[in-house]
């Protein structure tokens, strides 16, 4: 029930953003549409509704995670531009294996997306039972699993464990 209420609020907010300058006709139509969407796809998206109530997790998400993520994004773009414009094409690619200790679906999704948008790495596959990610790395510094885990995953794992676990 709680997950349906959260989904209803999210869908209604998205509707209000999509046709701005709200008047009564748009708001009533949006109310019914969001109600039916929340009724039909109830438990699919929000599986643990109690997680959204902690203000500490929101604080961590906004203050710790977002600036870090944007900074890594900008660094990744400058890195890609340098590698592409260099005449000798300095790449050294390969697929390595790293371990993670996150368990929940949302945490793993955010970890994989963050790895894809940070410098030089892209997640190829996830094995959730063993907690293993396969990562394509454009400039392989170390082939072994522990050293690669230390370089790639630990930038985000502590923050995401505070938010989603």
């Amino acid at each position, binding site marked *: 029930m709680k997950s349906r209420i959260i989904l209803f609020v999210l869908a209604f907010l998205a509707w209000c953003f*999509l046709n701005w300058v709200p008047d009564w006709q748009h708001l009533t139509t949006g109310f019914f549409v969001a109600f039916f969407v929340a009724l039909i796809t109830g438990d699919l998206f929000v599986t643990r509704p109690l997680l959204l109530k902690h203000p500490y997790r929101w604080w961590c998400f906004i203050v710790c995670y977002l600036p870090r993520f944007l900074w890594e994004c900008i660094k990744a773009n400058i890195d890609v531009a340098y590698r592409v414009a260099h*005449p*000798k*094409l300095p790449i050294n690619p390969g697929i390595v294996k790293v371990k993670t200790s996150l368990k929940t679906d949302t945490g793993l999704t955010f970890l994989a997306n963050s790895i894809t948008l940070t410098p030089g790495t892209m997640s190829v596959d996830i094995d959730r039972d063993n907690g293993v990610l396969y990562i394509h790395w454009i400039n392989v510094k170390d082939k072994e699993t522990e050293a690669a885990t230390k370089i790639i995953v630990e930038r985000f794992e502590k923050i995401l464990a505070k938010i989603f676990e």
Partner: protein
Amino acid sequence: MKKIIRWSIGAVLLVTIITLIIVRPFPFLFYPDLPYIGFLGRAIYVLILACALCLYRIFRGPTGADRIVAIDIFGIMIIGFCAVLTISTNRSWYIDIGIAWALQSFIGTLALSKYLEGRGFDE
């Protein structure tokens, strides 16, 4: 050595095209009395150059996966087109096309990658 020669030929070509775009007054297809129309018209031409590089990869790509990647990137760049056209023509419904294109292109790429994997769509 051959690599260096090819790189320098390509660099000279691209720098020439970009300089032509920036320096020469191209004919602008939009409303010439709106603000910033000079900058935005040149921006449209730079985006067209990037899309031409994408089209090269779509025609030339050795495997099917290359073509799928290039189509995905092409779809993301069309959203940039829609955003620039929103300012340069002052019509706000172009960004609606952008949002619809983002969602449809995402679903299309997922379906194409499932097809590449050789499985059914019901997974």
